[in-house]
């Protein structure tokens, strides 16, 4: 089973993300900030990280930089999921090593599409009519 670390300082957002991703057959772990997320990754690298940007203690961008420096830290697919929807943030995230970027608000379709982009979810056999 693929694992996804959901990183967001809002417990509501984490809950919604968990529900969506569990339906997509991911095993979920959670972190409230970048520092907790980093500790989680040092314990076990997840296959994916759904990453908020603005968080106390350590934000998503700083976490991303530190993650990619860890041994095996280049492996997880990092998908930002944030209210920061400006081009400047997106470009910075990509330059910082993010694989994809979701602008909040998000729904199941968007999460599915983005996780398909990074190769963590197979395409359906046929599209629905």
């Amino acid at each position, binding site marked *: 089973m693929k694992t996804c670390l959901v990183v967001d300082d809002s417990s509501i957002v984490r809950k919604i993300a968990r529900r969506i991703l569990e339906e997509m057959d991911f095993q979920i772990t959670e972190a409230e900030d970048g520092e907790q997320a980093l500790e989680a990754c040092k314990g076990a690298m997840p296959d994916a990280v759904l990453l908020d940007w603005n968080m106390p203690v350590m934000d998503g961008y700083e976490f991303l930089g530190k993650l990619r420096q860890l041994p095996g830290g280049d492996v997880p697919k990092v998908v930002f999921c944030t209210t920061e*929807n*400006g*081009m400047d943030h*997106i*470009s910075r995230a*990509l330059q910082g090593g993010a694989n*994809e*970027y*979701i*602008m909040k608000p*998000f*729904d199941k*379709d*968007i999460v599915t*599409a*983005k996780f*398909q*982009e990074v190769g963590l979810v197979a*395409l359906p*056999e*046929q*599209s629905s*009519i």
Partner: protein
Amino acid sequence: MTPPDYEYLRKLLKDHSGLDLSADKQYLIESRLLPLSRKCGVPGIGELVQKMKAGSSSIIAQVVEAMTTNETFFFRDKIPFEHFRDAIMPEMLKARAARKSIRIWCAAGSTGQEPYSLAMSLKEMGAALAGWRVEIIATDLSTEVLEKSKSGIYSQFEVQRGLPIQLLVKYFKQNGELWQINPELRAMVQHRQLNLLHDFSQLGVFDIVFCRNVLIYFDQDTKINIFGRLAKAMEGDGFLVLGAAETVVGLTDVFKPFPDKRGLYRPSGARAAATQAATLMPKIAAMAGR
């Protein structure tokens, strides 16, 4: 919606647009026509139907338009666009090397995601297309969706489904909550209003035709007729791309499938069956006239 109203709408849609709704698509009509009822200032579909029966051509036109628009998104189903990049375009670059020009038709261009996905794919091919002229013609029955397609403006939701973030950053400009595809890509797509039931020979001959998820709404005879006319509008070594749930197999032999490439077809060179053509043309002409 009462059964008689549903039947009335089914027949009207079939006569005006060829759209063939099966018996269980009430939910589709409701989801599209309830908002339209509100917009027209009537309480519900029953009252909308009354106005249509009373002869309101404007409401009839709006109903047809509301029912014939499709949901679409960028790089829908992914695989056809991989075929485009990995199979179709490489072959076309060789086959058209002398002509250095390629004509592409998106026969249900809708709100533009499909033609613009092709435009982005072409841009991504970079120097391989230097000196080439590639035309993308996007047609649709609905003038409303064509206007949206021309504008190239999409919501935050729309640009997050199917579009890799790198392409969003590269080819779009942000304008508040909206995103607009760059002028260079808008310039690559020409838009025309077209009813597929009508003669489309004036569009010329194409190398590549995307006709995805629009024929599903037509009945079998109409599909066969359109396939016949599509084959005539294509070069013999051209490519036809259908939607994931569609096929020509069992309907017509004017196209032959690529066995290992789902959704991809090429003209077979066979002529459309004469008897089909003879009986169908008056019927199609009657349907198309409005």
